[in-house]
């Protein structure tokens, strides 16, 4: 047996299965069991754009120190898919383990001496125990959880408790699932030395933590913000946001007396219409939003420009996926930064919110509605497939019951009594934000929304000065927005350093882990995590305060770096891009290598 380092509560399990075979519930079970043992865990779903039949992988990283990024290593591979067996075998880290279904012989061209291969006749055993063919397939997957339970010390009683909770109303299913677990568990105990040196050990119970994906958290944010109208066109990876919103609405937004809905969700004919519905609803005074992904933003751009110019509050969630074009719909990227910042023709600029985990998806969803209505403009929440669809461990979400939405500057009939005449686009307060009225309330507040040239009174104009007057006022509003976006988070290095690093969104986990690693090697780096656009003075101060600033992002063209160069006084030579864009979540190695190689080269240059 190859030498294996002991890895307790620090490992990656990767499970290779076939799409549509019910492996999601088996993987969820495994993940939750580790979570309840008090070990920090994250789960990443690497799935195909397919309904059934193509290979799919699920990676669980358990790490006692709480590192959550994709690590790149595989300590235990469960290779359930014959189609990808060879490739899966190659991925196992030396000293690691490969578990496979030995019902059928697997012929591998390559033989690896540096890993341990464990065959378990899962299909054969399940076929013997279960009759229906669909049940056999499902139970085969549950059975590997049993194998892992024995091999890796995963608490069997927790598995049982989880199954009992999941199938509370279907005791028969609890029974069959437990049977499947036992099949795997017993086989492993009888045939292998259990537990392996790579294993889990209870270290608490993760009290105060939850497992959630960013789309569900964002949907909860919309619910708690008081959004009543949701419009959308189905698109991966944002679909589960509206699915979740609908589910929460059915639970919390039904009139208890008559069962009617206190919400309206419209599945539009396309993303153009989804954007139009959001604008129409917001115009009438509802909090309205649409979840989409890059291709949807392309289609919505016409209305986004309209909303910017006609000043209609609107909230867009862009759960980014790999572009350009259709790209790879089930892979992650941060590639819509520039698209969203300047969406639509003409001079347009839009605030962006950049959540790094589901907790921020929740908070920023609420904040997005407040900002949209305060500023009367489109607001983008830019998450990505990694944040949106993967399972994250975060502190329990908290809600402050004293929160009341900021509906912005809205005049009702009583306010209109005080006015000689209402003008829609007049800046009375000097912050660039005019007052609006809701349709349906008062004829004195009536105005005409238009995307064509208009003056400060809301009238149509083709007069150049009148047009410019409004366009320049929108820039005043842009400055007001600077004070409303979430502030960046500064994580200063232990020692004073001239090296800085800027990252945002789902790169945070990889950066945090990388910086700890670099610090151990004596490389100190200050880290600024940007959480919003327009950039405020803290971003400028950080750029000014460092000689070198690495900009870490998940796209090819260094879009955030470009945005920084366009929207701050930064000098291009000091901003060094570190880029990752193969569609997988960014691993910490990428950041470590990016920083170390650049600084190393500089040392060499200095020495030469």
């Amino acid at each position: 047996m190859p030498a294996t380092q002991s890895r307790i509560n620090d490992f990656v399990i990767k499970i290779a299965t076939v799409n549509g075979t019910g492996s999601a519930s088996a993987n969820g079970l495994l993940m939750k069991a580790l979570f309840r043992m008090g070990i920090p865990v994250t789960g990443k779903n690497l799935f195909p754009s397919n309904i059934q039949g193509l290979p799919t992988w699920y990676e669980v990283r358990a790490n006692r120190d709480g590192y959550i990024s994709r690590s790149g290593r595989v300590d235990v591979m469960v290779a359930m898919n014959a189609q990808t067996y060879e490739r899966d075998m190659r991925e196992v880290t030396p000293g690691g383990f490969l578990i496979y279904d030995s019902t059928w012989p697997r012929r591998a061209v390559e033989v690896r001496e540096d890993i341990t291969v464990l065959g378990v006749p899962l299909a054969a055993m399940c076929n013997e125990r279960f009759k229906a063919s669909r049940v056999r397939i499902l139970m085969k997957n549950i059975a590997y959880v049993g194998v892992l339970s024995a091999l890796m010390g995963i608490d069997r009683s927790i598995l049982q408790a989880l199954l009992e909770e999941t199938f509370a109303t279907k005791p028969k299913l609890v029974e069959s699932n437990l049977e499947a677990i036992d099949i795997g568990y017993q086989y492993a105990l009888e045939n292998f030395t259990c537990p392996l040196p790579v294993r889990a050990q209870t270290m608490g119970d993760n009290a105060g933590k939850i497992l959630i994906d960013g789309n569900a958290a964002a949907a909860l944010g919309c619910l708690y913000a008081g959004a009543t109208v949701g419009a959308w066109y189905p698109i991966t990876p944002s679909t589960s946001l509206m699915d979740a919103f609908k589910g929460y609405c059915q639970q919390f937004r039904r009139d208890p007396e008559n069962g009617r809905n206190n919400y309206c969700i419209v599945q539009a004919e396309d993303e153009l219409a989804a954007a139009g519905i959001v604008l129409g609803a917001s115009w009438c005074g509802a909090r309205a939003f649409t979840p989409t992904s890059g291709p949807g933003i392309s289609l919505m751009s016409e209305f986004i420009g309209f909303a910017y110019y006609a000043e209609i509050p609107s909230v867009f969630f862009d759960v980014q996926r790999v572009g350009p074009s259709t790209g790879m719909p089930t892979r992650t990227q941060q590639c819509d930064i520039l698209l969203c910042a300047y969406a639509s023709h003409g001079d347009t600029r839009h605030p962006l919110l950049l959540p790094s985990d589901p907790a921020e998806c929740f908070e920023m969803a609420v904040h997005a509605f407040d900002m949209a209505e305060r500023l009367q403009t489109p607001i983008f929440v830019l998450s990505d497939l990694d944040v949106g669809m993967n399972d994250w461990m975060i502190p329990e979400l908290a809600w402050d019951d004293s929160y009341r939405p900021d509906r912005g500057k809205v005049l009702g009939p009583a306010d209109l009594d005080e006015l000689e005449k209402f003008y829609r686009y007049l800046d009375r307060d000097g912050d660039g934000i005019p007052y609006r009225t809701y349709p349906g309330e008062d004829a004195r507040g009536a105005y005409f929304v238009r995307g064509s040239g208009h003056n400060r009174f809301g009238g149509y104009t083709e007069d150049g000065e009148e047009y410019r007057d409004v366009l320049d006022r929108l820039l005043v509003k842009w400055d007001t927005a600077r004070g409303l976006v979430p502030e960046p988070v500064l994580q200063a290095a232990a020692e004073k350093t001239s090296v800085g690093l800027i990252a945002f969104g789902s790169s945070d986990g990889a950066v945090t882990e990388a910086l700890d690693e670099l610090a151990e090697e004596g490389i100190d780096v200050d880290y600024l995590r940007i959480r919003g656009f327009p950039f405020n003075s803290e971003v400028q101060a950080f750029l000014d305060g460092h000689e070198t600033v690495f900009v870490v992002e998940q796209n090819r063209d260094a879009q955030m770096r470009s945005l920084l160069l366009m929207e701050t006084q930064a000098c291009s030579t000091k901003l060094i891009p570190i880029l990752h864009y193969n569609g997988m979540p960014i691993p910490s190695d990428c950041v470590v290598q990016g920083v170390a190689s650049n600084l190393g080269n500089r040392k060499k240059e200095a020495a030469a």
Partner: protein
Amino acid sequence: MTFIAKPRVELPNEPVNAIGLRLRDYEGVGSTLCAGCGHDSITAAIIQAFWELSLRPERVIKLSGIGCSSKTPAYFISGAHGFNSVHGRMPSVATGALAANRDLVCIGVSGDGDSLSIGFGQFGHAVRRNLNMLYIIENNGVYGLTKGQFSASADPGSKAKRGEVNQMQCIDAAETAIALGGAFAARSFSGDREQLVPLIKAGISHPGCAVLDVVSPCVTFNDHEGSTKSYAYTREHYAPAVQTDYIPRAEQITAEYEEGQTLPVTMHDGSTLLLRKVDAEYDPTDRSAVLRYLEAHRSRGEVVTGLLFINEDLPEMHEIAGTRQGALTALPFETLNPGSAALAELQRRMR
């Protein structure tokens, strides 16, 4: 769309409607369309109809897309909120507006380019969704603002001002609405105010998407010899199939009508439509018969008008969705927000 304020002249003894408003209270700013444009006649009919219906201006929202037709919401009901959206996208904005506040009375004004070309998808889906609105298509067969290109409603064989003959098939808005399963489809002519006013009222009363296709000649680019959307051609080939009388709620039906010749339709708001058949064979409630009739007449070059099809029982968007009665915007935040205790409880299942 130049902004011309209309002079306000006080006239003594001007008649007022049931809520004390004068006809001019339903007017907007002055039109900047060409003199004689059919659209201005439609605007006048809209003003007349809304005044007669005694609707409070602030209850009304008026929306449009882009094009000559889409300028017109500025020309009526200045006390209503207006939304001049982007080209072909008026229906989605109307959908959102009504999603937020179903108590609003919604009128959308579009054109043949706006609804049958760039906005064909949104037009179709407003019908499919059965959005509770009056959807007027001011149909002149050409793009006026860009100087006279054929639109999708131009008939095959119709001649452009510069002599070009259209060889493509025409998209018929009313027939399309019926074929899509629409609940209300009507056609009229900008020159026939007597027919148009009751149809507008019927469309407003109808609890769903009321499509009203109005032939509205373009005096500048499509009113010549050889055009099938000219004043002369339309008058000559005008073939009303049904005449509609609109009888408001609480008003007695006094006219005597012959059984079989006149069809009374009771609307959900209590008003009644009396459909007087010009052609005794015509049945505006039989979808396939209506389509057959329309096709037969179209092949003869006739412009069939009237309330062509009605099914007042098809559920509209909110009925299908199960939305509460009354505007969602009227709900207090406390009703919408489940509170911290519910959030804590919900998260017990996330571990």
